[in-house]
């Protein structure tokens, strides 16, 4: 169920990227898409009532294995958030430069390249 919601969020982002004319809205759509994937990744490691995956001297290994959440998706999500940040900042920088050149955020008015 919750995975289906993730997928719907992904599709909303995709809709924003493909159908909107305003650059800012396209960027927002892109961000929503990335967050949907991040959410999905973190959910895949989640379990109800789980404990943090940290082992110390008192940890009982049996309860640890049965109750701890999967730490790998958390590491993956951190990486993918950083990558998303890189893309987002580059996208915003280019959008600002485009606004300086064209005086608009509307992509239908940026049509110097065609063919």
């Amino acid at each position, binding site marked *: 169920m919750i995975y289906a919601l993730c997928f719907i969020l*992904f599709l909303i982002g*995709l809709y924003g*990227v493909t159908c909107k004319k305003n*650059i800012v809205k*396209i960027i927002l759509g*892109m961000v929503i*898409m*990335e967050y949907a*994937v991040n959410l*999905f*990744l973190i959910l*895949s490691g989640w379990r109800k009532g789980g404990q943090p995956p940290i082992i110390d001297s008192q940890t009982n290994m049996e309860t640890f294995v049965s109750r701890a959440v*999967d730490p*790998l*998706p958390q590491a*993956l999500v951190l*990486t*993918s958030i950083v*990558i998303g940040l*890189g*893309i987002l900042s*580059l*996208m915003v920088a*280019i*959008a600002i*430069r*485009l606004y300086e*050149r*064209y005086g608009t955020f509307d992509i239908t008015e*940026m049509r*110097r*390249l065609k*063919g």
Partner: protein
Amino acid sequence: MTNNIITLVALPLGMAFFIPMIGRKLRWVPDLLGNITTFALLVLAGGCFQQQAVYNLGGWPAPLGIVLVLDGLSSLLLLIVNLISFMATLFSVQYLEKLYTSKLRYYSLFLLMVAGMNGAVLTGDFFNLFVFLEIASIASYALVGFGCEAEELEASFKYLVIGSVASTFILFGVALFYSQFATLNMADIAFHLKQSGFDQISIVASVLILVGFFVKAALVPFHAWLPDAHPSAPAPISAMLSGVLIKAIGIYPLARLAYNIFGITPLLISVLTSLGIISMMIGVLMALAQWDFKRLLAYHSISQMGYVILGLGLGTPLGILGGLFHLFNHSLFKSLLFLDSGSVEYETGTRQLEKLGQLAKKMPVTSTSTLIASLSISGIPPFNGFWSKLVIIMACLQASRPGLALWAVLGSILTLASFSKIQRYIFLGQGQEFDLEAAKQWHEVPLLMRIPLLVLATLCLFGGIFLIGGLQGPIGSGVQALVENSTVYISKVLGR
């Protein structure tokens, strides 16, 4: 040489940040360091050629840690990437001096891109593949918009949006695979897929990943970004993008996934061959109508990628041999053509065919190398493009698909037609807006720009010899890596 393949990733990555740190004061430092780095990478890649190795990052064994896998296919790709990047940096020295500023940032982004491509070719881990893919892609987005003119920014934004949607698709697919099999190692996923077969989630995940890589490889109908992005970049970058980037992060992962991870199926064969034919024909037909030198070349990249995917998609050893050999040849002649367009732009300041003319006498090296590359790409004997196209066509006939062979021949004829247009307008004849007064100033480009042109032209001329030995020859080990079924790949990486 093979037990430190991590150097191929670490060296450019380190230098990418080292050059801007020390190169601020002295103007010649970035040039020198950039060229030394790419040359060292070329030597390393040459040493790795046809070797086999599995490297555990951080000492963690295969299914848990990240592994780098060097086999016939990745060593071939490594050689191509590093050869072209050395040629491109050599060309950049004088080219950037005249047309662009900020060499520091240029070399920094360039080496990041090389690091990303080397990593993507070597890695045996799905998420790591995504990370390297993004390193190479983000550097290339920035390099496409390097000139900061309106058109370049527009092309860069378009490329950025389409490229990151594709990357998000790939990440989603990887996440689905992880939730299904709780592993990220490609060989481990192949092992699980072999054992349990494809269920619904695996099918969705593999389709998402394949579509993502179709976009990165710019196959029609996923090609819209390429004809804008490739011409807008500086010429050495165009050579890198068209010559190696779409192969290292587009075609290579597709081939690896289709053969070693998912296992080739009749459905996948028909998808790949039909995408190949469509890209081949649409690319060349669009190219015929172009009047911008680099834009015409960019459409030809789409068309030639169609040939490569057609060869790889046939699923027979001969087809894969043709596809890989054409991939190798395309990186040589397409980067040569883009460097030629760069030297034409360097002298004349324009890329419009209408405004150029009579360069054959004024720029003999450029015009001769363009002629050689044009004949190669059109498949005229004895240049290298002829041999690879011949192998692909023979493979089509051998797989008893004569229809495909016919399309391939037709595509080749149309390629010849559009390249005779380049010869007619730029080098031999003249365009309608040709200005005789301006033309008196034009002469041959400096020596440092001529060297890469001559080296690549020589390789194009004698490239056919790499085919000697066929499946046992230099290209054959790459074919071997693909045709041996996924069991061999799994046992190589995981040892089970």
